[in-house]
Every structure is written in structure tokens, then in C-alpha cells.
């Protein structure tokens, strides 16, 4: 039994290459907040707006609940800005929903989540 080599004609191969490149570009250009961000490579940060958090004693619960999420390396609260900055280890699978649930468990209302 013999195998014949498969030949892809050149114009068709060029089209495939263009489509793949466009897909890759589109995925990079997608808004990070809309993704449920699997971290890849370097560690990633989620900047989480915590509505209602307005005194130092409130920040502890927010920190503890966010720290309990999988793959969290650190949590920093910026009281004046009303936000928490959560740093995740590389390759961590965490969704926006999980982050929102953690903020609610601390007794507050989650706002916008930005992935960096």
C-alpha cells in the first residue's frame, strides 16, 4: 500500500493562513473584562470595583473572600478608589462570576472587573 502526498494548492493555503491570523488577532483584541480569564504565562491581575466598601474594617472581609479564590497570589485593596486588585498565578482558571460571588459573600456589591 502506498500513500500519495497531499498537496494543498497555494491560493487556498494562503486563505487558511489569513483566516488563522485574523482569528488570533480578534481573540487578542477582545475586551478582557468580558472573558472569564484563564491566566496564561505571566501572572495576571483583576481590578475589581467593590461598591459599598467605605471603611477599613470592611476591607478585611473583602480581602479574605477574594484571597480564597483559586490561584490567588495577592489581594490589595485601594479604599479611596473602592477597588480590590487581585493577582492570580499563571494558568489559573477564574471567572468573573467567581470574583463577583466572593465580593457578595463579603457583603458588598461587585462592580466592573478589568483584567490586566
Amino acid at each position, binding site marked *: 500500500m502506498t500513500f500519495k502526498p497531499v498537496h494543498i494548492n497555494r491560493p487556498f493555503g494562503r486563505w487558511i493562513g489569513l483566516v488563522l491570523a485574523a482569528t488570533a488577532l480578534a481573540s487578542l483584541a477582545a475586551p478582557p473584562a468580558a472573558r472569564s480569564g484563564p491566566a496564561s504565562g505571566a501572572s495576571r491581575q483583576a481590578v475589581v470595583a467593590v461598591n459599598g466598601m467605605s471603611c477599613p474594617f470592611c476591607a*478585611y472581609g473583602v480581602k479574605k*473572600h477574594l484571597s480564597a479564590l483559586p490561584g490567588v497570589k495577592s489581594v490589595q485593596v485601594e479604599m479611596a478608589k473602592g477597588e480590590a486588585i487581585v493577582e492570580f498565578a499563571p494558568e489559573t482558571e477564574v471567572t468573573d462570576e467567581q470574583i463577583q460571588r466572593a465580593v457578595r459573600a463579603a457583603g458588598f456589591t461587585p462592580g466592573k472587573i478589568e483584567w490586566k
Partner: protein
Amino acid sequence: MKVSSLPGRYALLCLSVLLGLFLHGDALAGPITFDTALPVASREGILRGQYVLVRATGDPTSLGRSITVHAAPVALAYGVTPRLALFGIVPYFDKSLKMNTPSGRIKRSASGFGDLLFLGRYTAYALDRPGSTIRLAPFAGVKIPTGRDDVSDGPGRLPRPLQPGSGSWDGLGGVVFTWQTLGWEFDADAGYRKNTAADGFRFGDQAFTDASFQYRVWPRRLGAGVPAYVFAVAESNLFLQGRDRVGGVPDPDSGGARWIVGLGLQYVTERFVIEGIYQVPAVQRLNGNAVETDHSLSVGVRWEFSFLSS
């Protein structure tokens, strides 16, 4: 004045003190002398310890009664869910009464753990915005007669209000409102306490309303991270109490109205709060010959901890 009528004469004082202690804020920051509607995060706890001193020497009679109450309530709050918090509070009391008698000035005193109070509070409404929150939370509780109410000394069994415990099962309910921003906080509550009879004695029911305003005096500008705050605190507590009943008969020297105002300071960090308040009565319209309060002082600490592993 007969010694037997003494219970009613300072029942209002003791109950006012007790109620103030029992309603002390067990949650986040908040007022010093009553509760707040701010949340206790789920699976987290807050432990609070206080020392309270109350002095009352305003006796309109020749008995020259002087009452001193040292109290050390310990409270534990636990967040069952982000909206439902449970509180358990037990005070330790040292109460003493000095008064003139035909045989000279005598002192009667008792000390020990008081009654255990369980409270539940549910956040019915929350409006969270960046840097501010508005909340409304009803609360209800029951006081269990765990403290001793049969302490005796030379002259016999001590009057009921001088006992560490009340001997009765009592119910408590109300609602608390909080509006907190990055720079200030306002809290107010109103409630009612229904007392029951035990051994022929019943403390008068009590209605109360409290208000507190806390203003951040330091730091003037918020820096990065979670800076510690210093709050200047002004509080008001109004108590209206019915007459006690001894053997079913109203005690004419018990009950009345008391409006207490106070100024204090709070040092609030991420893990703990240190606080103190000095209070004086602004108005005391007490029935009969009840002893008027001079002043009270309260200092305390709150510590927040978590059952979450991180």
C-alpha cells in the same frame, strides 16, 4: 424609704445600662453604644470586649444612694450569610449600692456573669455605590436568664436590679439604619424590649431610639491601600421605660425617660477597632425617687477574624 422598694428605684438605671451594652455595635465599625446595619462577611466573626463604668449619685432623698456599675460585656458576631448575622453577648457585672441607714452607711454589692443575649440581624435593604452604602436591617433577639438572680448578703437577698442576672426571659426587636461614606457614617435605630416576670418581679418594658454620627478626622486625605481611620463620634440614646411590677403591683419609683448624649473616638484599622465614649444624661424624667445617672464611660476593642482559608 423602705429598702424593699429599692429595686424599682434603680431598675431604670440598670436596664438602661444593660440595653446599651446589649445593643452595642457588634458589626463593622459603626456606633459605640448600639448596633449598625453594616455587614458581617459570611463565615467571618467579630469579637468585641468592652469595659463600661456607670456612676449614679443623683438621689433626691436623704438616703444618699450611690450606685456604681462596672460591666465587661463580651460579644461575638458571626456572618451566616452576607445578609444574616448572629450575635451572642454575655456581660460580667460588678454592681454596688451605697446608702445611708439608721445604723450608718452600708454597701451592698454583687458580681458575676449576667444574662446571655442572642440576636439575629437581617439586611433587608442595601444600596451600594462606589465609596458609600445605605442599609436597613431589622433585628430580633431573646435574653436568656443565665446570670444569677439569687445573690444574698448580710441583710438578705439583694434587690433584683442589683443581681447580675434578671431571672426572666425577655424579647427584643427593632430596626437599624446605616449610611456610610468614605468620610462619615450615620446610624440610627429604634426598638422595643418586652420583659417578662420572674419570681414575682417584672422590669418595665422599654422603648428605645439611638443615633450616631461618626466623622473621619484623620487622615484628612485618603492615601493608598487601606489607611487606618480616626473617627470623632457623637451619639444619642433615648430610653422610655414603663414601671416595674412587684407582685403585679406597679412600682411608683420606677420607669421614666432618659436621654443620654456622648462624645467619643474610634481608631479603626483593617483588623481591629479601639474606641471610647463618655456619656452624660441630657434629660432625666424619672418616676418617683429614682436615682439619676451622673455619667458613664465605655472603652473597648473589636477584632475581626475569618474561618476562610486562603
